[in-house]
C-alpha cells in the first residue's frame, strides 16, 4: 500500500480546545506524553475530515471543495502539519496499533498486590499511576509500567534505587511485581506538591527554605550512592510540613552503573548539551552533572524562571546552555540575592571542574549565603493622603496635573500593592479621562534613569542601578509641589520604588498603566 492509499483517522482519544478570541485550536491525544499542539482553525477544519477514515487526497479534496480553495494549495500548506500530527499519533493509520483506544489497565476496587485501588491519578499509553490503600488503611500509589521497549529497564532502575534508598528522600517500596513489559510497584503515597507549585504560595524566605530542603534531599540521595537521573520540579514533591520527597526513579543509577541520559531543557547540563549539539553520545551522568540540574531547579524555585533564556531554536538553546552564564536574578524579574546568586553561578558553571565538589558542598554554601534583609518600603501614608479628594491637590489640579496624579497613584499601586493607591488611581484616572502624562524628554534625568534601569534589568550590572538611584535622590531634593511625575520629588519617589523593582519600571507616557 502506498502512502496515498493509507486511510488516516483523527484518533477518538484526541481532545481539542479552541482558544478564545484566536483562530487556533489546542490538540492533544489523551494518554500521550506529547504536549498539546497548536493548530490553526483552518488546519482543524481539515483535521475534522479525518473523523472517519480517509486518505489524504480524499480529505484535502473534500475540505477544498467546502471552502472553495485550490486543492494543490491546500495540500501544500497543510502537508507539514499533517505529517507532524501523524508523528505524534494524533492522526493514525486506520487499523494499526497506534489506532487502538487507550483503556485503563486497572479499575477502582481492584486488588493489586497488597493494595486496593481507590482512584486514578494518571493513565498514559505506556504507564499508569493509581491511588490505593493497604489493608491497614495506609495510603499508597500503584505504579504500572507497560512498555515493551523501555519498561523493563525503567522498572529495574527504579527498584534498584528504591531498595538502596529504603524510604530515605524517596517513597518506601511496599511491593512489586515484574513483567516482560515492565511491572507494577506499590509505593507509600507522598502528600506533596511539585516544588515549583509549592513556591507559589510562600514568600522569599519560604522559597529559600524549600530550596534548602530540596538540596538536603539530594545530599541524602547522593550520600546513598544514587543518581536521580530525572531532576525537575515535577519529581520533587514538597509536603505541607516542608519535607521534600523525590519521586520517579526509572532513570536512576549510581556512579558504578550510570543511567541513560535523559531530561532536557533547562535541567540539561552543559556537557550533555554540547554533545547533543555535536551529535555525539552524551557523557555518562555523574554527581557533578546532576549538581547542575539540581542547581537549575533551585534557580527556578527562587526566581520562577530558568537560568538561561531557552525560548529560541533548539541549537541556539543548546549553545546558551553550553556558553552562557546563568542570568542574574534581576534580569528575570526576581529580587537580587548576590550571595545566593554567586553560589548558584558556581553550581551552574559550564565547566564541571568549577562546580562544588558535591551537592553537600553546594547545600552548605547555599545555606551559608548571607541574606540581606529587604529595606523597609517607605511609608507612603501621608503622601497618598495628600492626594485624596479632601486635600488641596484635588481642589487645585487642572486636567494636565490630574494625569500626573493618576499616573503616580497607579504606579504606587502596582509597585507596592497599596490598596489606598489603588482606589486613588481609580478616582484620578476617571477625573483625567484615563489620559497618561507626557513622556519625559529623552535628555531629561528621568529618561536617563529609566534607560539605566532598563539596562540594569537586562544585564544585572550594578553600575546602571547606581545611576538610577543617584537620579532618584537628586530628584527627591527638588521639592514636593506640584505633583509632577517627570521631575521633582514625586518623580524621585516613584523612581526610588522602581529601583527596588526594576522589572516593573515604567516611564510616564508609556502604555501599560
Amino acid at each position: 500500500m502506498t502512502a496515498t492509499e493509507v486511510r488516516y483517522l483523527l484518533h477518538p482519544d484526541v481532545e481539542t480546545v479552541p482558544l478564545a478570541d484566536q483562530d487556533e485550536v489546542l490538540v492533544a491525544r489523551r494518554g500521550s506524553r506529547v504536549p498539546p499542539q497548536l493548530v490553526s482553525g483552518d488546519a482543524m477544519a481539515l483535521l475534522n475530515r479525518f473523523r472517519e477514515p480517509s486518505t489524504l487526497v480524499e480529505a484535502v479534496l473534500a475540505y477544498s471543495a467546502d471552502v472553495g480553495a485550490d486543492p494543490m494549495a491546500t495540500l501544500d500548506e497543510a502537508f507539514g502539519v499533517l505529517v507532524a500530527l501523524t508523528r505524534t499519533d494524533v492522526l493514525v493509520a486506520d487499523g494499526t496499533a497506534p489506532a487502538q483506544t487507550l483503556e485503563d489497565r486497572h479499575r477502582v476496587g481492584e486488588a493489586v498486590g497488597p493494595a486496593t485501588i481507590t482512584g486514578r491519578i494518571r493513565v498514559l499509553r505506556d504507564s499508569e499511576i493509581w491511588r490505593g490503600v493497604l489493608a491497614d488503611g495506609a495510603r499508597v500509589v500503584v505504579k504500572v509500567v507497560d512498555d515493551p521497549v523501555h519498561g523493563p529497564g525503567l522498572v529495574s532502575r527504579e527498584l534498584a534505587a528504591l531498595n538502596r534508598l529504603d524510604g530515605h528522600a524517596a517513597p518506601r517500596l511496599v511491593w512489586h511485581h515484574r513483567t516482560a513489559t515492565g511491572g507494577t510497584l506499590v509505593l507509600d503515597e507522598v502528600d506533596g506538591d511539585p516544588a515549583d507549585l509549592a513556591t507559589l504560595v510562600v514568600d522569599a524566605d519560604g522559597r529559600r527554605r524549600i530550596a534548602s530542603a530540596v538540596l538536603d534531599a539530594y545530599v541524602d540521595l547522593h550520600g546513598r550512592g544514587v543518581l536521580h537521573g530525572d531532576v525537575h520540579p515535577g519529581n520533587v514533591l514538597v509536603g505541607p510540613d516542608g519535607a521534600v520527597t523525590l519521586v520517579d526513579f526509572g532513570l536512576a543509577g549510581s556512579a558504578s552503573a550510570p543511567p541513560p541520559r535523559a531530561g532536557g531543557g533547562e535541567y540539561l547540563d552543559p556537557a550533555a548539551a554540547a554533545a547533543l549539539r555535536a551529535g555525539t553520545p552524551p557523557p555518562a551522568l555523574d554527581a557533578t552533572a546532576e549538581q547542575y540540574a539540581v542547581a537549575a531547579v533551585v534557580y527556578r524555585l527562587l526566581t520562577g524562571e530558568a537560568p538561561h533564556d531557552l525560548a529560541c531554536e533548539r541549537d541556539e538553546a543548546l549553545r546558551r546552555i553550553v556558553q552562557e552564564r546563568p542570568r542574574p536574578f534581576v534580569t528575570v524579574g526576581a529580587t537580587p540575592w548576590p550571595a545566593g546568586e554567586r553560589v548558584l553561578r558556581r553550581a551552574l558553571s559550564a565547566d564541571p571542574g568549577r562546580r562544588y565538589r558535591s551537592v553537600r558542598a553546594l547545600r552548605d554554601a547555599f545555606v551559608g549565603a548571607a541574606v540581606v534583609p529587604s529595606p523597609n518600603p517607605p511609608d507612603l501614608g501621608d503622601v497618598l493622603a495628600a492626594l485624596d479628594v479632601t486635600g488641596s491637590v484635588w481642589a487645585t489640579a487642572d486636567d494636565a496635573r490630574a494625569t500626573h496624579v493618576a499616573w503616580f497613584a497607579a504606579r504606587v499601586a502596582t509597585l507596592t500593592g497599596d490598596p489606598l493607591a489603588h482606589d486613588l488611581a481609580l478616582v484620578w484616572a476617571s477625573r483625567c479621562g484615563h489620559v497618561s502624562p507626557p513622556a519625559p524628554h529623552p535628555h531629561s534625568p528621568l529618561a536617563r534613569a529609566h534607560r539605566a534601569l532598563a539596562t540594569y534589568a537586562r544585564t544585572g550590572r550594578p553600575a546602571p542601578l547606581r545611576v538610577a538611584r543617584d537620579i532618584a535622590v537628586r530628584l527627591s531634593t527638588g521639592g514636593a509641589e506640584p505633583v509632577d511625575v517627570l521631575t521633582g520629588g514625586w518623580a524621585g519617589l516613584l523612581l526610588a520604588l522602581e529601583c527596588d523593582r526594576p522589572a516593573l519600571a515604567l516611564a510616564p507616557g508609556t502604555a501599560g498603566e
Partner: protein
Amino acid sequence: MSQPSGDRLAQMTRTLVVRAAALAGRARPDELAAVLYRSGGSAPDPRQDPRWPHHLAHLAERSAPGTERYERSRAEHWNGWTTPGVETTAQVHKVYVSPTVPGLATVLPVVFATAAALDVPSWKVGADAAGLHRADKIVLYLPSASRADTVAAALADLLDGCSAQGVPFTGQVGATGIVSRGQDRPGESWRAVVCRAVADALDEHRARLGPAAAAEAVAGAALDALADAYDVVTWRPGTREQVPA
C-alpha cells in the same frame, strides 16, 4: 462565639462615596458606578505566576473534606463549587470573605472546610490574579438570610485573627470586616445594584448642589436620599423594606 460587628466596612464605604462625590459632575454616572464597584481592591503584581490562583484553590480543596461532592466549574474569571442539582438562581443571599492577598493561602482552606461542613450550596473564588485582588474575591451563596447569617458568623469567628481587605457596600459581620453580607436581586449582583444606585444619587445631588459643594455634603445628601431603600450606614441587606428579596 460571634464577634460583635465593627464599623470598618461602613467607614471604608463612606470614604469611597465621598471620593465618588468629588468626582460626580466630572464623570458620568456609569463611570462613577464603575469606580465605586472596583474600589476596595488592590493592584496585582504583573509578574505573578498564572498558576497561582488555581494552586491556591487546589490546596484549599485538598485540605477540606467534603468538597469532593461539589461540582466544579471554571469560567474565565471565577472558579465555582456547586452542589449538584441545586437551583443556583435561588441562592441570592451572599457571604463575602475578603482576606488580604497574602492571607489567601491561610483563609481559603478555612472557607472551603466551613462551606462543606455547613452545606453551603454554592461558592466561587477569583480564578486569576485580578480576581484575587478584587475586594469580593470569595463569595458564598445561600438560599435564605438566616442560613447566610449562620455561615457568615461561623466564618467571622474562625477568621477573626486574619487580616481583612474588606468589601465595600456590604454589611460587616464580626469585628474585622473580613466577612460581610449582601443579597442579590434576581440576575443582578448586590454590589452592582447598590453602586449604580449610589452613583445615580451622587450625580443627581451634585447637579442639584452645584460644582462648588463639598464632596461630603454631596455624599451625605445622596445617601440620605437612598436611606429608604438601603441601610446606607452599615449596608446590611434586607434591613429596609424596599430591598427586594
